[in-house]
């Protein structure tokens, strides 16, 4: 049975040693206690005597290499004897007797971690906790260098410094490459500085006099939905105005006909029609962002935001809207509006939209920055239709005008494609054919 040669633990605090020289070569014969190799540690340089008589079968650690105390350095045995590849229990035969005792002592941590949820992070001191809260830092991302691996004040300050360092590259601004986005959402540009400038001790709203309104389920849903949308999609809003003269003329005539069918013809179906036209011209506007890619929708399912008398709003979806006529759209709009306000929409009637129309102009709003109804990529807001002086062929004319605010997901569309869509909507509205009397 071959005997192994190990790196001795040469001193109380020594954990490793370096092989400086082998005094025998593989195959040479050695006597027990004869010097076999020289090692160097933090505390001592010494010769290591052979643990047994025999032939130096194999050197495992070459000269110059540093290994932990206890590491097998070589094997001694009879010539041709097989070297075990698993050192098994034999290692412990060579351990000094005090080893288990000293182990049990050093295994005991000097300062015990307090039990609890900070178990993984170790002891968190008050100043580290405070800095983490103030600077909004995830302590799990910091490597602790303190006692027992705890995160020290220095660790967190260094972390903060590094983060700042990344943001504040010391390069002239004109040498900083731009990403070509003129429409960078302010949240993206300023999110960090806004967060930093917000005092940690900002007054809570509860501190001011007032009452707290309980959250209705619909309010909660809207809130979650809006926040999710704003956080996931970089919103950009582009605004164009449209002359509604042609639509108005058509509507004046068509309303009477529709009235016979008990259809209330509002401007909404016209806007829906125009959107359909726009989406057909720019299919990218009828899509959704996914991590796999931009999903172009085959169907045009138009949502229409309906304000509820109890507050909030709901968005019923006209499926395959492009297959409907103006009257068909009007009928569906009437139906949805009535049933939405009565709370009688079916769950599937508010799902599956690919684009949304919202009319924010009922009380006079001119233009707005609507929030995208996820997972769609765009929403069109219509302001109040009002007569305004406009220049037509160098003459001032009074026309019924409307602002169209189109918010799009900048991950999906760029300014050019978005404006192409909106321009098509405007074009459709302005060039609405005259009604057949």
């Amino acid at each position, binding site marked *: 049975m071959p005997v192994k040669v190990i790196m001795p633990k040469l001193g109380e605090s020594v954990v490793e040693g370096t092989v400086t020289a082998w005094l025998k070569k593989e195959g040479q014969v050695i006597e027990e206690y004869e010097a076999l190799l020289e090692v160097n540690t933090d505390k001592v340089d010494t010769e290591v005597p052979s643990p047994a008589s025999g032939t130096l079968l194999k050197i495992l650690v070459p000269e110059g290499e540093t290994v932990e105390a206890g590491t097998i350095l070589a094997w001694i045995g009879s010539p041709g004897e097989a070297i075990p590849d698993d050192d098994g229990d034999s290692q412990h035969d060579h351990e000094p007797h005090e080893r288990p005792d000293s182990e049990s002592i050093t295994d005991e941590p000097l*300062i015990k971690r307090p039990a609890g949820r900070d178990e993984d992070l170790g002891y968190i*001191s*008050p*100043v*580290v*906790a*405070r800095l983490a809260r103030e600077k909004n830092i995830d302590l799990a991302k910091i490597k602790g260098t*303190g*006692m027992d691996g*705890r995160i*020290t*004040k220095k660790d967190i300050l260094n972390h903060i410094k590094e983060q700042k360092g990344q943001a504040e590259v010391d390069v002239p601004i004109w040498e900083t490459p731009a990403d070509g986005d003129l429409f960078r959402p302010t949240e993206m540009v300023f999110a960090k500085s806004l967060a930093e400038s917000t005092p940690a001790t900002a007054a809570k709203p509860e501190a001011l006099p007032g009452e707290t309104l309980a959250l209705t389920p619909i309010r909660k849903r809207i809130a979650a939905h809006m926040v999710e949308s704003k956080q996931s999609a970089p919103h950009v809003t582009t605004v164009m105005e449209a002359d509604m003269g042609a639509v108005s003329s058509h509507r004046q005539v068509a309303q009477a006909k529709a009235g016979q069918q008990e259809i209330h013809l509002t401007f909404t179906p016209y806007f829906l029609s125009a959107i359909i036209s726009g989406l057909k011209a720019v299919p990218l506007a009828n899509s959704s962002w996914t991590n796999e890619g931009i999903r172009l929708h085959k169907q045009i399912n138009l949502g229409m935001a309906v304000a509820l008398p109890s507050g909030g709003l709901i968005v019923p979806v006209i499926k395959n809207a492009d297959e409907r006529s103006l009257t068909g759209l009007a009928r569906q709009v009437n139906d949805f509006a009535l049933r939405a306000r009565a709370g009688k929409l079916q769950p599937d009637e508010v799902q599956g939209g690919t684009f949304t129309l919202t009319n924010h102009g009922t009380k006079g709003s001119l233009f707005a920055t609507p929030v995208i109804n996820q997972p769609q990529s765009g929403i069109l807001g219509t302001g109040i239709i009002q007569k305004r002086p406009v220049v037509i062929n160098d003459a001032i004319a009074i026309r019924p005008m409307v602002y169209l605010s189109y918010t799009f997901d900048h991950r999906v569309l760029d300014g050019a494609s978005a404006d192409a869509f909106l321009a098509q909507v405007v074009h459709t509205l302005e060039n609405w054919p005259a009604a057949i009397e």
Partner: protein
Amino acid sequence: MAEITLVEAVRQAMDEELGRDKKVFVIGEDVGVRGGVFRATVGLFEKYGDERVIDSPLAELTIVGVGIGAALYGKRPICEIQFADFIYPAFNQIISEAAKMFYRSNGDWSVPMVIRAPYGGGIGGGLYHSQSVEAFFTHVPGLKVVIPSNPYDAKGLLKSAVRDPNPVLFFEPKKGYRLIKGEVPDDEDYTVPIGPAKITRAGQDMSVFAYGMMHHYALQAAETVAKEGIDVEIVDLRTLYPVDRETILKSVRKTSKALIVHEDNLTGGYGAEVAATIAEWGFMDLDAPIRRLAGPDVPAVPFSHPMQGWFMVDADKIANAIRDLASF
């Protein structure tokens, strides 16, 4: 600027104050012809006469009680207690009378006096020539407690103490009397205000709060550990009462670690007040437990050299405490 010893700074302060203000006089045991057992009053008797440099009876109560009376009359007594260990016979006068006089008379009667006393061990003085007594007095509103650590402060603070309209206990680190030397302006009538502590060494890694002889050792320890990469800030508390909480907290806010050093016994020692100040107002700045390094809780410093060495806090012990706290 001349380099002088700490005891010479004390002597100069008294000399200059005696010369400046006729109301000032010195009273104590052996302060006259002998010039004080520590030679702190050398030459004053010859210069100002036996009416202003008075050898008192061997009675500490008399020194302080008579001093209070003279202060009530309008004099500015400097009372010397030969060793701080002997101050207890005068304790009643200091606590019941000097400290409370102004308050209890609603501001009618004040006691402008200084009680000087050499304190501290490490000089082979045994139980009764080695004591640190400051904690008995830093609990008492109406008193001011000052402990200088170097000649400049000793002279400037003592002059301020003489001019202060309140009773000031002025404890001098006797081991440092001749060991600690430093520069002091030659002719200038300068004072050091009573109240503010002083950051005597700026550092980032921890704050060490000390005073008197321990401040001297703390500076030495800071230099030692600096070579190991530990950057220590030293705060010389100088005025123990009233407490300069602002400077204490300012330093902790910066370093987030605090080590308080005194040679007085640990329990109920002055370090407890510093620690409480930090815990109460500086908790959210802390990155480690507050640590105290102090004399052990045995009645006093033993005489025999090895036992004295065991008792006394020194630069090596401070350096070890710094290393320990730095590793946290």
